């Protein structure tokens, strides 16, 4: 297995260069030359390069970027908006923050090129509210780009105009869902909207709107500079390019690592992550952020980090959040945190999601506290299954998938908790028969 050499990195080459977030240093490193090249190309040729690159969206859904841009109806006579999704809030994911804080001009350059390709003259970066440092850094970079004439009217004589605005969210995971983001940017609660119409046709203010993730847009300058075909030589046959993987949990060296798609997961954990902390034994890995079903240690040994291979293990690359769980952490606790998260963040518009997320969370918590019953497992499976594909947005599926995944891959862990609950009940009933007081709770109120 060959690792990606540092000089071949696409997104993180030289990312630790001091002051890379200033326009001087960024340009010294060759920054903004892809933008200049792009202005010499036809917008459709740019879309063509991105199509040829095979780049798929890095926000989680993995939709082909060039195809998305190609869907935009350019001739409606309406303004076209380009929204950069920097709401990064899926538990386990922190790659966009790195790009925003360390290399904001790369994102701005990507946005300028993308806006030129999709004929957009107004763009917003929607950054999650908690990322105050990133927001400050990006705002400063935007100001520098305006001062240089890279934003505003008639950029470098190209006749292309672009205004770019940084917009801060305010603490709502659902605003990362593209239509929730659009609602939020319109000054409303971040309620997702039913698709179709897709944002590319009717999004922000009912105008055609392209929504792309930070990492997706940051990849664009390289593709334009080096060509889509060159990008496609990275990665595997069907999963092209490199990605940022966010490694956290029980490893020696957590962090963000760029690698080619197709890298064995085991290499990511052992080589980049420096292996398990304190020599602990591996229990499970969540491979793509909290919504992605976990992998067992045997699966971790075999799994490659590419879109198709990971699917054969019933999971996804998601937004690149790899969470490593050691043996001593009870899986029920992990699942409890995950299901509480989705319950907390459900916007409440759809009944299966609003009710289902609460039911999952409460049932899991009751199992965790040894109040479970043997019917609970089937009940969880039934509830989770009924939440899939039945709602306005995919948060409901995101809440259901880890529950189904954990139950399927680690049934013995959950069975053990139910057995323990049963044993406690027996002891408690026995004491009652003996006429002794019992303080044990046998049921948790739902």
């Amino acid at each position, binding site marked *: 297995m060959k690792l990606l050499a540092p000089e071949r990195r696409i997104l993180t080459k030289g990312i630790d260069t001091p002051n890379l977030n200033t326009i001087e240093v960024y340009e010294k490193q060759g920054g903004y030359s892809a933008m200049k090249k792009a202005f010499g190309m036809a917008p459709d040729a740019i879309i063509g390069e991105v199509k040829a690159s095979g780049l798929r969206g890095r926000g989680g859904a993995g939709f082909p970027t060039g195809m998305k841009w190609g869907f935009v109806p350019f001739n409606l006579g309406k303004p076209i908006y380009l929204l950069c999704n920097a709401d990064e809030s899926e538990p386990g994911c*922190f790659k966009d923050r790195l790009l925003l804080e360390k290399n904001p001009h790369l994102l701005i350059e990507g946005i300028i090129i993308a806006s030129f390709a999709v004929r957009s003259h107004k763009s917003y970066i929607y950054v*999650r509210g908690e990322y105050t*440092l990133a927001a400050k850094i990006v705002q400063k970079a935007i100001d520098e780009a305006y001062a240089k004439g890279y934003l505003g009217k008639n950029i470098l004589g190209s006749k292309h105009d672009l205004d770019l605005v940084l917009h*801060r969210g*305010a603490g709502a995971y659902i605003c990362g869902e593209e239509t929730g983001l659009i609602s939020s940017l319109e000054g*409303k609660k971040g309620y997702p909207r039913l698709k179709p119409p897709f944002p590319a046709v009717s999004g922000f203010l009912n105008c055609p709107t392209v929504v792309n993730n930070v990492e997706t847009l940051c990849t664009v300058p390289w593709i334009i500079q080096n060509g889509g075909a060159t990008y496609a030589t990275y990665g595997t046959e069907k999963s092209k390019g490199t990605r940022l993987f966010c*490694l*956290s*949990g029980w490893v020696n060296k*957590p962090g963000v690592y760029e690698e080619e798609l197709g890298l064995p997961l085991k290499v990511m954990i052992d080589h980049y992550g420096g292996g398990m902390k304190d020599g602990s034994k591996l229990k499970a890995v969540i491979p793509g952020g909290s919504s992605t079903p976990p992998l067992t240690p045997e699966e971790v040994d075999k799994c490659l980090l590419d879109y198709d291979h990971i699917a054969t293990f019933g999971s996804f690359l998601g937004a690149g959040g790899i969470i490593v769980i050691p043996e001593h952490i009870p899986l029920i606790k992990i699942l409890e945190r995950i299901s509480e998260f989705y319950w907390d963040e459900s916007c409440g518009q759809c009944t299966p999601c609003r009710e289902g997320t609460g039911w999952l969370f409460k049932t899991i918590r009751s199992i965790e506290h040894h109040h479970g019953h043997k019917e609970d497992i089937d009940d969880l499976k039934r509830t989770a299954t009924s939440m899939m594909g039945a709602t306005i947005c995919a948060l409901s599926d995101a809440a259901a998938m880890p529950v189904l995944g954990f139950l399927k891959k680690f049934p013995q862990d959950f069975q053990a908790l139910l057995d323990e609950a049963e044993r406690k009940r027996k002891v408690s009933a026995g004491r009652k028969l003996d006429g002794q007081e019992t303080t044990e709770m046998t049921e948790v109120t739902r």
Partner: protein
Amino acid sequence: MSDETKKSEDVTKIAFTPERQKAFEATVAKYERKASALLPTLYLAQEQFGFLSPQVMVHVGKLLDMPPREVFEAASFYTMFRKKDMGQYLLQVCQNVSCCMMGSDDLFQVIKEELGIGPDEVTADKKFSLQPVQCLGSCDTAPVVQINDDYVERLDAEKFRALIKKLAAGEKVAEVNS
């Protein structure tokens, strides 16, 4: 709390300071619709008044030509807007997977021991409050606490206890976070 908050009892007396009024106007000008400036305007208001009282939200509605109901709804939808005085330091402790695995439960325990408060409570001297939060996007430096705007990373019980003591003694987050 500041004098401005006391004045906020009477909605007619609520106004942005001249600099904030200017910042507000510059912000609105960036958007195609006034309503789009809702979140930045609420941030400006929170910065000035400390939290969003109903009177402050009515004022924001007026500025943006929005019915107060819509401002209330939005303000309660987004968790970063404070609806009551949360004191000088809002301790936002991440309780999600990676932080939990790396010991965030201990941090809640430290807060209980040192400050005697639980979730959404404020100390009597209005110096500290606690809010459990979801993943802060910093799982590689877990466990993480966000204190007002600043992230404090790679914590453990002892470091966190020392930090709280320093803040209580009047040091600034930036000073103790280097």
